[in-house]
């Protein structure tokens, strides 16, 4: 019973984190159509901004708002001065990918200089909710709640607002969307802002539960890419299903098979799933 409750808490927390990560990545994919490694840089900026505000004595909500603000501003600056120029030069997806790797390297370097390469924690004295065999930290509860809010907002925006329709239109055919009167620049800016918010929420969530260092965001990005691929890149409402599947396989493999086989088991199942899907289509 205790094992079940421990595993359930772990799965629910992982689903919440992966869903948020995946939604953010899907927003970027919808407008950029390349694997934007710069998303990992946004995770870093969000988490470390939170850390800086907290160390400066800000309360948790103030630190979170400050981190969101800085992350969004940095994402917009990046979009305006890097990605817009790349698109103006008709850069290939490969070139854009390489530039985004460079962006991550620069941000990692800046973060290392400002905060050192050591692991940092966002919360020192953690509080816990304990009931029977269930033991959940407040930061896990917070991450799960934020994950639910982000998912519901993203789902609503995607299916009930003109912005959601416009994002899909740009994703499907940018030229057609432009001739139909969609403000491409506005859609891009808003999508980048949404992605930055998701990156910050996920970065803070992971940081609160574990620790952060300049290299921590890369593995999160890889997870986001894989999850996004399971049910189709750019499909924001379905991000949660990918996150559920991935989290369950990952946690189950650690509990049942063993930690050494976590990645091998998870990716074997995912490869089989993708092969099955492509054979069906």
């Amino acid at each position, binding site marked *: 019973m205790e094992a079940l409750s421990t*595993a359930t808490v772990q799965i629910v927390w992982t689903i919440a984190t992966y869903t948020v990560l995946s939604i953010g990545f899907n927003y970027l994919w919808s407008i950029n159509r390349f694997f934007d490694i710069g998303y990992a840089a946004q995770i870093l900026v969000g988490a470390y901004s939170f850390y800086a505000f907290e160390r400066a004595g800000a309360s948790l909500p103030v630190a979170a708002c400050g981190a969101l603000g800085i992350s969004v501003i940095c994402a917009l600056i990046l979009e305006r001065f890097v990605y817009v120029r790349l698109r103006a030069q008709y850069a290939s997806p490969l070139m854009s990918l390489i530039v985004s790797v460079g962006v991550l390297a620069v941000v990692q370097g800046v973060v290392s200089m400002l905060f050192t390469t050591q*692991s940092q924690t966002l919360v020192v004295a953690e509080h816990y909710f304990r009931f029977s065999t269930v033991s959940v930290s407040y930061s896990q509860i917070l991450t799960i709640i934020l994950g639910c809010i982000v998912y519901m907002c993203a789902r609503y925006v995607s299916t009930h607002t003109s912005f959601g329709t416009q994002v899909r239109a740009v994703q499907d055919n940018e030229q057609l969307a432009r001739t139909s009167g969609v403000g491409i620049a506005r859609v891009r800016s808003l999508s980048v802002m949404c992605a930055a918010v998701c990156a910050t929420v996920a970065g803070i969530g992971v940081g609160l539960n*574990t620790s952060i260092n300049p290299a921590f965001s890369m593995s999160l990005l890889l997870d986001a890419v894989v999850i996004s691929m399971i049910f189709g890149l750019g499909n924001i409402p379905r991000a949660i299903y990918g996150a559920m599947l991935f989290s369950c396989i990952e946690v189950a493999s650690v509990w049942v098979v063993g930690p050494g086989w976590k990645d091998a088991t998870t990716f074997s199942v995912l490869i089989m799933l993708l092969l099955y899907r492509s054979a069906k289509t």
Partner: protein
Amino acid sequence: MSKYTVAIGGVGLVVLLVGAILISGKKEVPVVTSLAQVQEVTMGAVLSLTGAAANDGNDIKNGIDLAVSELKKRGTVVHVDYQDDATDPKKTISALELLKARDISTVVGLTWGYIASAAIPTVNKENITIFSPANSSDIVAGASTTNRIYYGAVNNYKKIEPTTAWLASVRATNLALIATQDAWGSAHTDVWSQASLKAGARVVYTETIPYGSEADVMPVAIHKIKKQKADAILWTGTEAGAIVFLKELERQNIHIPVLGTNYIRIAIVDGKVANPGMVSSIESPATADFEQRFKKAYGLSPSVYAESAYRMTYQIAEKQDLVSSYDAKGDTFGGQWVVAGVR
């Protein structure tokens, strides 16, 4: 010959005579020879100044820099060509090849065991002599295939005695082991198994965790430790791993004695996690004299790796005899492991 020619010749002769007298009368000025007495040494340093091993890498660098500044005062100028491998073995190899291309064959560094393991073929091929302050031969896979590496860390088999004493002091009977899934972790599980035998404790649970998987694995590991009713834990791992481990202990409300390697102390002392109590660390302390000088220079407490790097820099600069300092495997003769409670 005209009278003008005679006059010019006479004046010239006088000038020459006066010049000769002046030159011959000038006192001899001694040549400054102090520059010739300055000894110059060049060495390389391939360190993990960024990445997962940055803590140890920067500590080693501080140790080298302290030795360099002291040696300079004694008339030996040591030029250190620093290379950051970012805790990436591929970059370590590139850095070693770059140093060799610059004609540098003596290098301090290769911060962690797996980095040193990866570098062994290059070290052998390029005939580079390595002084590795933070490693010992038992945590470097393939250490027996080279005799070009000198190790500064105290061999882990010396941990058996203090670990046995600690197990006895906390009256451990059911023991849980958590280690990393590499040569470092393997060396520790061996040492701990021997210590548990000597202390009469039974190992009820062993978990080896792949690098970077601590957050995923720790909830399971701690749950199983609880289920197996372990009454003491021996832990080793990374800095991030120490934080996750201590947080998970707290989350699952487990309060049993823990003995860990240095990162468990760093995580608590640096205020990254709350001190759960009953945590001890096993470390090889720096000598009091070195600690005093290091604190004066950097305002920080040194790790033993800083002192090893300091000592090794002196050995290189002064071309000391290495036979009296290292055994056949390249391990240092000195040092000991000490268990201390973390406060």
